[in-house]
């Protein structure tokens, strides 16, 4: 295990495939490496170290259960990230004795699975370090099937790999601890864990527990291991430097620290805004257990078992008493904190709104007071302020990028520049695209003409249907006279009719007795064959032949107006050719 990190880091990128087919444990229990010479050479230095001293543990690696170690998992994720050659650290489902940890680790590290198993068993025998590492890995490794699909894999394995590299330090620390001070307490704790863990593995699956642990903050786990490794290293160093290291003190203190980290990690998780994430009770329990064990071990040093129970009872009683005494205080503090937080949030919101009102409404009111003689300006200012305030209240930003938002903005612009209110109604909505953008521009142009040359009220109605977007801009003026305003005629022809046609839509102008209505229709959907527009440069394109658009004047003859109330559907040809003003624009 000690050599692993360095070795795996220097492994050639093509080796995992070979590893997948590599490990074979012979019937005699000896590991036979059937790899190429290169692979064997890399692993050669390890071979004498690992299996030999613990050959008596060999029967625990049943070779029969894994006739074909792990070809599939290693081959699966590999092509996805060829740059990093190591297969992901996942527990193997098919090839497992207990939980598939050893098989997964072997595939990950490129070692024969037998060696890993032997190493686990061997390191478990003296002080139970192997068991601890096994449990840790079991808790933190994903099962291969339950892992995220290949696309989701690349980020995760990196973190897991990092975890493993540092965990390889932890077992070292644990073993070193044991080596420095082979005290009864340390051995006892190790034994107790080793006696518990097999039940966990072989009994119920405890999937919930595992997922809890695995979903937990890995940083906390790594911190724990780092603390353990640091303490162990310090103990080792002090021991070698000649100091008298009392392991019976060090080990319980480490346990207490670990317990505290477990406990506090939950505090850290749940503190912002009062428990966004649910507290993981298992972590609290584990932390409490560690702390309790540490305290007991600290107090019970060297005494016998009956006293241990007494001490345990005393510690428990003290803890319970303290918590009972403190509970009201903590509760009170907690409630106060929550109230304070709520108050602060409210104050912030209020300050935001106040700032907004100050910047907008108060400024406008001041302006209005100063210009109160000019009623047009007052109306314009009030209208602009109203629009701005509405968009603030409606949280218009959340609708950004939709047709409705674009229309609202365009109408607002017209109102702002012309000082005439426009009544906009939009039903339905859809995200903007370039064709809809053209529609918005055409609507804007139509509205612009309406507010400039006609009299209010000006209404714009846009209906987003399943296969077309229809827009109607209507004014109540005397109707704009195309002949009298040649510039606008060009504007109408180019900016409205031409623009709509370039995007596969149609435009129609209806003159009514009491106003004009411009109807725009733009088909939407997947089969939109409109050509992309040179719409922004109207001068470069000659006025298009109005094949689909027609300027009609049905008003003088009401019966000529199409009886169908959905004129947009029949736009290209429906209106009777009664165009009196613009005969040259007639299609036929």
């Amino acid at each position, binding site marked *: 295990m000690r050599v692993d990190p360095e070795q795996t880091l220097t492994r050639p990128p093509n080796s995992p495939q070979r590893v997948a087919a590599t490990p074979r444990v012979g019937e005699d229990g000896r590991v036979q490496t059937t790899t190429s010479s290169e692979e064997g050479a890399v692993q050669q230095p390890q071979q004498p170290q690992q299996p030999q001293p613990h050959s008596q543990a060999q029967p625990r690696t049943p070779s029969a259960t894994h006739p074909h170690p792990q070809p599939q998992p290693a081959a699966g994720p590999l092509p996805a990230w060829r740059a990093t050659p190591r297969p992901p650290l996942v527990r193997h489902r098919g090839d497992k004795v207990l939980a598939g940890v050893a098989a997964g680790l072997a595939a990950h590290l490129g070692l024969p699975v037998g060696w890993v198993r032997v190493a686990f068993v061997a390191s478990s025998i003296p002080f139970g370090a192997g068991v601890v590492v096994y449990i840790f890995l079991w808790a933190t490794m994903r099962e291969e099937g339950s892992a995220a699909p290949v696309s989701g894999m690349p980020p995760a394995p990196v973190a897991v790999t990092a975890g493993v590299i540092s965990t390889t330090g932890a077992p070292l620390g644990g073993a070193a601890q044991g080596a420095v001070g082979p005290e009864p307490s340390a051995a006892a704790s190790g034994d107790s864990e080793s006696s518990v863990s097999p039940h966990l593995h072989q009994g119920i699956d405890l999937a919930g527990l595992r997922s809890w642990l695995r979903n937990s903050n890995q940083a906390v786990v790594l911190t724990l291991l780092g603390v353990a490794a640091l303490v162990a290293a310090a103990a080792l160093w002090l021991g070698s430097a000649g100091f008298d290291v009392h392991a019976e003190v060090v080990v319980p203190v480490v346990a207490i620290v670990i317990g505290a980290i477990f406990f506090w990690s939950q505090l850290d998780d749940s503190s912002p805004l009062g428990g966004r994430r649910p507290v993981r009770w298992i972590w609290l329990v584990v932390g409490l257990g560690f702390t309790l064990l540490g305290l007991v071990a600290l107090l019970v040093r060297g005494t016998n078992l009956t006293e241990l129970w007494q001490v345990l009872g005393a510690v428990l009683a003290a803890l319970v008493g303290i918590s009972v005494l403190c509970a009201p205080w903590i509760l009170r503090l907690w409630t106060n904190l929550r109230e304070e937080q709520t108050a602060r949030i409210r104050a912030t919101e209020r300050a935001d709104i106040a700032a907004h009102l100050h910047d907008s409404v108060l400024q406008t009111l001041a302006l209005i007071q100063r210009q109160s003689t000019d009623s047009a300006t007052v109306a314009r200012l009030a209208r602009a302020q109203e629009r701005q305030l*509405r968009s603030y209240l*409606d949280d218009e930003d959340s609708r950004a990028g939709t047709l*409705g938002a674009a*229309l*609202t903005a365009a109408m607002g612009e017209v109102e702002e520049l012309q000082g005439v*209110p426009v*009544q*906009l*109604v*939009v*039903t*339905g909505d859809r995200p903007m695209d370039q064709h809809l953008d053209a529609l918005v521009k055409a609507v804007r142009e139509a509205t612009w003409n309406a507010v400039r040359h006609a009299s209010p*009220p*000006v*209404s714009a*109605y846009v*209906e*987003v*249907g*399943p296969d077309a977007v229809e827009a*109607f801009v*209507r004014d*109540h003026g005397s109707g704009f006279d195309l002949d009298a305003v040649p510039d606008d005629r060009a504007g109408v022809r180019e900016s409205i009719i031409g623009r709509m046609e370039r995007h596969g839509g149609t435009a129609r102008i209806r003159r*009514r007795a*009491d106003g004009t*209505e411009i109807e725009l229709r733009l088909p939407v959907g997947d089969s939109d064959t409109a050509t992309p527009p040179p719409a922004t440069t109207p001068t470069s394109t000659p006025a298009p032949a109005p094949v689909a658009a027609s300027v009609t004047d049905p008003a003088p003859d*009401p019966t000529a*107006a199409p*009886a169908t*109330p*959905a004129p947009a559907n029949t736009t290209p040809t429906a209106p009777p050719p009664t165009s009196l003003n613009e005969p040259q624009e007639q299609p036929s």
Partner: protein
Amino acid sequence: MTDPRTIRIVIVDDHHMFRTGVRSELTSLAGSAAISSPATFRLQIAGEAGAVESATQVITQEKPDVVLLDVHLPGGDGHGGADVIRACAGVDSQAGVPVRFLALSVSDAAEDVIAVIRAGARGYVTKTISAEELLTAIGRVADGDAVFSPRLAGFVLDAFGAAAGEVAEIDEELDRLTAREREVMRLIARGYQYKEVAKELFISVKTVETHVSSVLRKLQLSSRHELTAWALGRRLL
């Protein structure tokens, strides 16, 4: 029509300035000898109120024909105008017909619209409406017809899925509009007056009013879930 009737109204709004403005606008307009054709009635402002409780009291006492009702009002159960409508349910005007409510709001929020309409208001107009239009709307509501602003029409089209092409097969269906109702709503949303709608569809104004009232009834009675979900999740444009 030769004998102009008198419509008595009560103005309920928590802004005193607004009440004064409406009052002066309406009296000057209604006093100026039938300025427009719909003003074939005389208007009498019977009272004013600024909160739910006082409004209820004034309405039960004065028994007006029409109540101009602000959507947002202090007091009551916190539902503003809807509370007033519920509290005054069963109150008849002096003419013996139920008191009618015309919601008049500065808000375009769909939840406000739907709340007050479903509580029983006969119409919904925004406060930016012109005085002539308001007068017309009052007359229409007094006759028991419905008044839809373009925005309310757009809301109806959206909430009933009519904009997406859903149309009822039979008239009695509460959750969808008929094809004709949809056309009427579309024209109203486009800014058409009732008479313009009538002209456009070659029907009488009375038929338009019938269609609008039918839509209003659907709006009040329909259990279409989009109606409430939409009202909660969005605001009128």
